């Protein structure tokens, strides 16, 4: 079923039982499977890049199975007591699934190999047994590795390790979870220098980074080998050319609903991907509204209750579903052979993500995957077009360049102290052998060490409360057993404190109903009792928060009052943004676009100007008694929000009274009470000065002082770094509550020790995370001296989408003081009107 093995490989790579097994199934080993066997024989670590359906996992394990079968045969040798092969996956479900798939060839070839998983769900008795009597192959997750290494059993478990298999490495590298894994790998290599590492990855723009992951970074740029599997058939990709009017804004793709339904009906099993949980909820509802044939269509996203997700996955595995509406929750995961179509609703945001999703259809390599893109608005048509071209060219988003996070390093350092005493020099050498930390300077390492020991403050107040201490021989050890206990409770890089369970209030009482899933805390914060929202496929009424849970009731309302929440929204990738700009700048290519979109761009050209490939188009115009400034950086929503915050501050200082702003992935609009066209014309406002990169200095610092996003970022670093515990007393509901909020810690630390290592970690996160400062910085540098301003009489065609977002998702431009004053004013107005309950829903119906 595949090409013959490459001719230059020795033909004895596969022992006889394996040949028979392949032959018995009518298979031939694939070239990349044999190549990995050859790498193993040569003692080389290697990265396997292969599309889904290429037998990637089996390729990763074949060398292990061969070695283990030969070892079992050599009866006279004593079986080494440790784990032979360690498999690490980003998903525990995947680890369990892979273990199951591995059992089959092992059983059929009668190999005496013990294969076991270890996840958060593994019972304590089995975990203990695994430590006493380790399996040959252990399948697990990065967090479990951290725990095992910190337990002190690392050497006994992994001293004999021969092979490490890292699955979906592209999904782990570049994240904090990846950082944690890389540090664990460094320790594994110290315990077992003989072990080889195999990385399994989808196609990536820069395989060299992943290749460096596989070997210690003793010398700069050292890399594992790479094996590239034969590409599968090219995917069949198209964009849905909807007959209906293409909306100006919004993300629901309602206009294409009938066409999506027809696609579901016409195929065996369809995965319908959307970008946010809210979109998943809405689309799922709408599909059921028109589901006259009662097709089994299910819903899957990360906020739904785990048991519900598992039921959907099981039904999928049994082929009982016609379609699943899902988010990135199904980007990775177990293979479902029956999926024959992927529908991506909304813009794909990045070409790599899109390719990953497309690969979820049809896991047979020799047949093309089929995918249909459904843009939800006009800009998304441009984005889909750019993405289609990128996928056809096989062009990937390049990964964001980042270095290993210091908060993760702090967690690891504490874990290593729990494992046993260490010398700082040795641990530093080990840490910089990990790819993400290869460039870590000694001073940063020492700061982290100091932080772990006593908090790392310039004011040396906590020496006697140290968590790790130096012994006489200079090595570091944990101060007491409670520290190790604390470490175990805090391990991991996923901070879930910001999610709240959603529970249906019972029929008779308000308590004890079914849990529907979880929502982000900040979403709940903007709601008042009585508000309705869509969740778990129904319209729900928000009643109250009870015992840290959101209590809801089913509502008869047809339309939810609270329109959306952004959970799981990804910003447009830099790579795709550049392609969209190029598409806009080249009218010759517009003929490939749907007629309405083509007309829209022609009209923009006529009425205003088109954004240049490298320029920044800025339009100013009056509308509805207000004055608007619209800029088109195409740098994604997060960077635009940060830019909007900073520009608003500057315009405020310039006396132009901005009232607010709104950002989407492509543009941002700032609106205010003063004529900005006039101010520019009279030279009172300079756009070059307004957009000067110096806004990333003091203005940014000022804003960060009160930015809720920054505080959220800090909280995550504080939890991961072990400054505060995951289950922190600040969340108690207790009348005598003396709470501690990380916001307060942030304020105090920022004022008194702005250079503290945790603040540095938080700033590094902000640069690439929620605030996307690095991208903003790159953009400001790019457009310096290239601002193309046009003053208009009225709104331009291109500005309409972002203008329509005003009022849809409010991002307040003003500082919080102005908002407090507004709340007070509202109260006064209310008092004057004689109303007793200001319609905020917080009337007497609620009592805590």
């Amino acid at each position, binding site marked *: 079923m595949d090409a013959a093995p490459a001719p230059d490989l020795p033909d004895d790579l596969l022992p006889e039982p394996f040949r028979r097994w392949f032959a018995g199934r009518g298979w031939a080993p694939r070239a990349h499977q044999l190549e990995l066997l050859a790498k193993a024989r040569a003692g080389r670590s290697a990265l396997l890049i292969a599309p889904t359906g290429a037998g990637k996992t089996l390729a990763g394990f074949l060398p292990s199975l061969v070695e283990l079968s030969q070892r079992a045969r050599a009866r006279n040798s004593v079986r080494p007591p440790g784990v032979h092969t360690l498999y690490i996956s980003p998903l525990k479900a995947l680890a369990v699934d892979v273990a199951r798939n591995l059992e089959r060839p092992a059983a059929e070839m009668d190999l005496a190999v013990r294969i076991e998983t270890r996840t958060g769900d593994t019972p304590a008795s089995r975990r203990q047994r695994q430590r006493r009597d380790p399996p040959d192959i252990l399948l697990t997750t990065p967090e479990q590795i951290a725990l095992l290494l910190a337990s002190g059993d690392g050497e006994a478990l992994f001293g004999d390790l021969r092979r490490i298999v890292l699955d979906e490495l592209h999904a782990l590298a570049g994240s904090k979870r990846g950082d944690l894994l890389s540090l664990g790998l460094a320790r594994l290599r110290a315990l077992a220098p003989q072990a080889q590492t195999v990385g399994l990855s989808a196609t990536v723009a820069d395989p060299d980074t992943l290749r460096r992951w596989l070997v210690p970074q003793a010398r700069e740029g050292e890399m594992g080998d790479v094996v590239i599997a034969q590409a599968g058939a090219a995917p069949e990709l198209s964009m849905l050319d909807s007959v209906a009017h293409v909306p100006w804004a919004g993300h629901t793709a309602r206009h294409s609903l009938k066409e999506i339904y027809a696609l579901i009906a016409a195929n065996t099993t369809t995965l319908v991907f959307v970008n946010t949980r809210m979109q998943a909820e809405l689309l799922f509802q709408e599909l059921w509204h028109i589901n006259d044939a009662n097709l089994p269509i299910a819903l899957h996203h990360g906020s739904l209750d785990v048991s519900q997700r598992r039921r959907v996955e099981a039904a999928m595995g049994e082929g009982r579903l016609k379609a699943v509406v899902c988010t990135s929750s199904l980007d990775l995961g177990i293979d479902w052979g029956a999926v024959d179509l992927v529908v991506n609703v909304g813009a794909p945001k990045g070409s790599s993500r899109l390719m990953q999703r497309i690969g979820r259809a049809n896991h047979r390599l020799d047949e093309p995957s089929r995918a249909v893109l459904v843009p939800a608005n006009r800009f998304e048509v441009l984005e889909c077009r750019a993405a289609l071209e990128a996928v056809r060219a096989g062009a990937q988003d390049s990964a964001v360049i980042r270095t290993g996070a210091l908060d993760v390093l702090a967690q690891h350092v504490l874990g290593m102290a729990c494992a046993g005493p260490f010398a700082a020099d040795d641990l530093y050498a080990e840490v910089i052998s990990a790819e993400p930390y290869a460039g870590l300077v000694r001073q940063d390492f020492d700061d982290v060490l100091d932080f772990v020991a*006593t*908090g790392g*403050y310039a*004011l040396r*107040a*906590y020496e006697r*409360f140290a968590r790790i201490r130096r012994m006489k021989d200079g090595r570091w050890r944990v101060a007491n057993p*409670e*520290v190790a206990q*604390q470490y175990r409770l805090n391990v991991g890089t996923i901070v879930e404190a*910001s999610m709240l369970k959603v529970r249906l209030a019972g029929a008779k009482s308000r308590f004890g109903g079914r849990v529907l899933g979880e929502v982000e*805390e*900040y979403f*709940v*914060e*903007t709601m*008042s*009792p009585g508000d309705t929202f869509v969740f778990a496929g129904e319209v729900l009424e928000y009643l109250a*928060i009870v015992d840290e849970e959101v209590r809801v009731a089913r509502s008869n309302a047809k339309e939810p009052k609270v329109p959306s929440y952004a959970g799981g929204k990804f910003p447009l990738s830099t790579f795709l943004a550049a392609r969209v700009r190029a598409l806009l700048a080249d009218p010759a290519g517009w003929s490939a676009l749907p007629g309405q979109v083509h007309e829209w761009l022609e009209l923009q050209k006529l009425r205003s100007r088109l954004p240049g490939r490298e320029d920044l188009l800025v339009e100013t115009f009056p509308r509805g008694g207000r004055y608007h400034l619209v800029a088109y950086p195409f740098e994604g929503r997060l960077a635009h929000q940060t830019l909007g915050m900073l520009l608003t501050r500057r315009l405020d200082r310039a006396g132009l009274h901005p009232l607010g702003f709104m950002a989407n992935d492509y543009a941002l609009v700032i609106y205010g009470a003063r004529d900005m066209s006039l101010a520019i014309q009279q030279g009172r406002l300079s756009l070059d000065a307004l957009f000067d990169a110096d806004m990333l200095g003091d203005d940014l610092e000022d804003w960060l002082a*009160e*930015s*809720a996003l920054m505080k959220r970022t800090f909280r995550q670093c504080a939890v991961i770094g072990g*400054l*505060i*515990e995951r289950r922190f007393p*600040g969340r108690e509901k207790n*009348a*005598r*509550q*003396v*709470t*501690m909020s990380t*916001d*307060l*810690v942030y*304020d*105090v*630390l920022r*004022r*008194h*020790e702005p250079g*503290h290592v945790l603040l540095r970690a938080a700033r590094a996160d902000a640069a690439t995370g929620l605030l996307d400062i690095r991208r903003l910085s790159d953009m400001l540098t790019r457009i310096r001296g290239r601002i193309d301003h046009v003053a208009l009489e009225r709104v331009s065609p291109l500005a309409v989408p972002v203008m329509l977002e005003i009022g849809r*998702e409010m*991002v*307040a431009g003003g500082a*919080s*003081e102005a*908002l*407090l*004053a*507004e*709340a*007070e004013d*509202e*109260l006064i107005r209310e008092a004057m009107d004689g109303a007793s309950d*200001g319609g*905020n829903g*917080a*009337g007497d119906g609620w009592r*805590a």
Partner: protein
Amino acid sequence: MHRTAETARETDGGHDGTAVALAGVALVLDAAGALWWPAERMLIVADLHLEKGSSFAARGVPLPPYDSRATLTLLARIVERRRPRTLVALGDSFHDRGGADRLAGEERATLAALMRGCEMVWIAGNHDPDPVPGFGGICAEELRIGPLTLRHEPAVEPGEGEIAGHFHPVARVVVRGRSLRRRCFATDGRRLVMPALGAYAGGLNVRDAALARLFAPAYEAHLVGAARTYRIAHHACLPDR
């Protein structure tokens, strides 16, 4: 878009404050979170929770050790501005019994300096039931002056003219889709519960039953802002999260 962000203050607003009446006595809500009684030249602050950071550090949670400095700096500025004859700390001045001993030299000096120009009264709190040996001043369970009673924990009986702390009231409002949470004074004109002044003192929502039950049905919150307080009726404040 935003989760509620709390803000610790060390800036001292410095406007004249908001006049309120409690049991007929004219008082001023100082924007920095203190209470000013002009007729008595008395400054009242609540729940300083000094050395809370080191209290956590002793339990393996090394919070930044700057909370006492931040709190005392703020207090010193208010004292500087108001020049009180009497300064009353309404209890929980130290986060635990060992707090006074852990207070570092520089902060001790700040405290001593701000006490120099006035008579200091330490009211006992539940965190510091026998307050503050060695810092001077008077220690008391409660203080009665004219129609007003100053104590740490509000009494069970509806206290006419009671000024208390203990609960660290905070109020939350949602304005234009943004949730704001601030420390606040809570009062119904008969009783007044003070906001905590301590940099690490968190808060209890004014809508929580434990606080709401202390007041007549129509109580209000005065939110502590950067330079002034903001008056919001209880029904316009939202329960937490």
